[in-house]
């Protein structure tokens, strides 16, 4: 019979998230899987409820994109008891490894580090004052991407973060906060911007332009996610680098699941997705065309 799989998604708070949902649905459809989708509206309690409902319904497997790392032990144990394999998408959890089958994630700290390393290479020893647009305060990408970036630039004394404020992962807050950075520090004194996601970077680019500066030249911009709009900006030289976070987490997860169901192949606990760095050297226009219909 066809597989029925429950997918507990965090919500639809960003374009990237929407793309992940779209891709997951496509991947399931491709494999003839009946996907039960549950949107948790950013709330962990809703995700736990969804998981419990999936268990009560007796699905064959569960895909979980956890909103936060902690707090899953109990419900995962229930799933285990009901012999329903759980696959984690895009973030892992703080729970004993035997409670889930595998986690398909990128390494958030690593992403930050790639961005830091890139900036270090780019500056080649020149002094640089960096402003940072953080993600939503308290969210794990914000924490880890900050940590990774700081690691990435820790060995370069020429690089210094001079201001860091949250832009809530949104384009409009990115713009607002960048505006205040530009005024508080003076546009000429900022040499680079590091944004925890592309949306904030896109907003910041507009703020920089409105302040009469050239984004990408006067202020270098590096951000994370690789959404279509940042490639468009890069194609016109207004942004410098982005690190891809693929929305296709479900593909590898479902592959692993199918292999397991077919012949009992136990997948590794962590399937890491690639954190690919895109710079101005890539054909950004082409990447944009490629990505723009993926539901970002």
């Amino acid at each position, binding site marked *: 019979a066809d597989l029925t799989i429950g997918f507990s998604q965090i919500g639809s708070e960003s374009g990237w998230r929407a793309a992940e949902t779209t891709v997951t649905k496509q991947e399931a459809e491709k494999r003839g899987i009946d996907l039960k989708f549950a949107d948790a509206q950013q709330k962990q309690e809703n995700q736990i409820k969804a998981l419990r*409902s999936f268990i009560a319904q007796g699905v064959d497997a569960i895909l979980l994109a956890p909103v*936060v790392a902690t707090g899953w032990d109990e419900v995962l144990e229930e799933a285990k008891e009901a012999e329903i394999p759980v696959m984690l998408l895009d973030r892992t959890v703080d729970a004993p490894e035997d409670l889930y089958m595998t986690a398909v994630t990128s390494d958030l700290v690593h992403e930050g580090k790639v961005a830091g390393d890139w900036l270090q290479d780019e500056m080649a020893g020149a002094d640089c004052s960096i402003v940072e647009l953080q993600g939503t*305060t308290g969210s794990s990408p914000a924490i880890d991407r900050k940590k990774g970036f700081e690691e990435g630039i820790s060995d370069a004394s020429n690089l210094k973060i001079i201001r860091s404020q949250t832009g809530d992962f949104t384009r409009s807050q990115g713009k607002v906060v960048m505006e205040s950075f530009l005024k508080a520090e003076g546009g000429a004194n900022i040499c680079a911007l590091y944004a925890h996601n592309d949306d904030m970077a896109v907003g910041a680019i507009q703020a920089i332009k409105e302040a009469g500066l050239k984004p990408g030249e006067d202020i270098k911009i590096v951000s994370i996610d690789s959404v279509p709009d940042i490639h468009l900006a890069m194609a016109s030289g207004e942004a410098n680098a982005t690190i891809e976070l693929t929305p296709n987490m479900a593909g590898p997860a479902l592959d692993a699941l199918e292999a397991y169901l077919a012949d009992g192949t136990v997948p590794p606990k962590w399937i890491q997705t690639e954190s690919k760095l895109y710079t101005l050297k890539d054909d950004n226009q082409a990447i944009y065309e490629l990505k723009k219909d993926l539901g970002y």
Partner: protein
Amino acid sequence: MIRSTHLPLLVTVLTFLVAFALCGSQYPSMLTTRVVANLLTDNAFLGIVAVGMTFVIISGGIDLSVGSVIAFTGVFLAVVLRDTSLHPLAAFALVLSLTVAFGAAMGAIIHYLDMPAFIVTLAGMFLARGLAYVLSTDSVPITHEFYDFLQSLYWKAPGGGRFRLTGVIMLLTFLIGMIMAHRTRFGQNVYALGGGAQTAKLMGVPLAQTTIRIYALSGGLAGLAGIVFSLYTSAGYSLATVGVELDAIAAVVIGGTLLTGGTGFVAGTFFGILIMGLIQTYIVFDGTLSSWWTKIVIGGLLFAFILLQKGLTWATTARRKPLTDFAAP
């Protein structure tokens, strides 16, 4: 004895039963002990805050801070249990006294400074979450054998449903809440306050004391809900339970309590919680709704329930008291 005033309560109970039966006929696996147990466990923290919210709303007020207080409680517990050797029970007592004091302070500001509850508790909401951030932005796991012990207290029913301690705490809270609302002088004063603060004052209701107690109760129950939530997730997280105040308000309203104050039932809130839980369960069982349709359907069902309630109340009272009650907006 059934009085006309009990009608909204009856409507809510009836609505729940009919809805449950309908869901069951579509998805038979919804009629299992698992689903029933989940309804109790998953909504335990929400139910507990909703009890406090019922009191607040009956008194004519509102408490927007509860969601943040739950988050603060969780983070506080997690940080205290991580950084000190305090026993969880002592930490519970500590955090409960903090949240009670927090609620009481809001009540005092509302009364003595004569400010609307909406705004005072909105500031309280910012403050509580802000404090949670200051304690820790990271989510902090709680590992303590006492927590493991509490989590191991459940009864596994045939059919796989687990009736957990947290569900029992919620049921007890509702029971005590019902007795407090309907059988104590404090409860009567709460209703009196909702009927009209100035009149209640002229009738000798101690306004200051009652207001402070109401918000202290709500704060304390939010603290208790925070404890239950920390048991539920074994962690404290400053971004947790955003917007829970709106869920609680919705549950109270679906339960037949008027936001204008003065009328309502703690028992109604219980069914309000169950109805909301049922909606969510149904949506997950269905599993075809996209993120946006989920929101639209939740809004639509909320509307349908309000309308149903309105219609039934209207149909049964229109004859007796036509239009003269200008349901004050």
